[in-house]
């Protein structure tokens, strides 16, 4: 698995949706996903449509009696993209915390606010 950022998963709401779908469940229901992510119905509908159009998420609609139930799951492509993006984020987090530790230990002069920026560009994939 290659750690690389995915611009589609980058926004925090889509990262939440994809990260929750990649947690180990096969299918997650609309209300469960909405409550866990802490977002509104409309935001989940809108963002899940974007992910569905990109082929990252599969949507299955059904009903139990009169109650409609919508289920989501990651496609194989989506699962791969999420894994890569989460690995990239973990690297980013590690780089930031290493940089903070370095500053706290006095490796960098106090007030060197540019240091994290020097660490981050290679991970962000752009300079």
């Amino acid at each position, binding site marked *: 698995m290659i750690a690389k950022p995915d611009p589609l998963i980058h*926004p925090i709401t889509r*990262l*939440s949706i994809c*990260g929750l779908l990649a*947690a180990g469940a096969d299918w*997650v229901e609309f209300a469960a996903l909405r409550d*866990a992510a802490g977002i509104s119905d409309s935001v989940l509908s809108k963002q899940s449509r974007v992910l569905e159009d990109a082929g990252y998420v599969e949507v299955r609609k059904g009903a139990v009696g009169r109650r409609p139930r919508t*289920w989501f799951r990651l496609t194989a492509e989506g699962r791969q993209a999420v894994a890569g993006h*989460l690995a990239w984020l973990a690297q980013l*987090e590690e780089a930031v915390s290493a940089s903070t530790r370095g500053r706290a230990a006095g490796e960098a002069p106090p007030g060197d606010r540019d240091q994290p920026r020097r660490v981050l560009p290679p991970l962000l994939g752009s300079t």
Partner: protein
Amino acid sequence: MRDVASDPAALELLRVQRGRLADRMRLPWWYQSGTAILWALVFAGPFSSRYLPRGVPTWPILVAAVAVACLMQWGLAWATGIKLPFRNLRYRPGRPVGIAILVVFLAAGETEFLLIRHGLLAAAIAVAALGVAAEMACLQVALRVTRRELRGGGGAA
């Protein structure tokens, strides 16, 4: 919309959200009761070979039990909003509890056969009850494994 590149706590937020999803994974009372009844039926099997009149087919009970088990799985997904993939013994985190379920099933079943053959009916019933209790304990462990997986994202983050 916030951008995660400026927020190193994005992964921490995701961990919290996964924790919320894992907390939804609770076993309703009917699921626990149903599972206990199904295991009781399984452990009643050795008694049927001796005490059921010959010629009475046991397969309708088996088919009904499988149908009830499938219905319960569907009901659990409906109640929790989470459908879990089918796991076998190749799934490493669930392997110990899977093996424990098999060992309890085989050990209790064989012990019951042995006790019934020696006419120790009360002891056989006690073993069956212990078997059901042990399988229910395994169910709780399996639930903990599932919750841990949902929380940790299977090592994804």
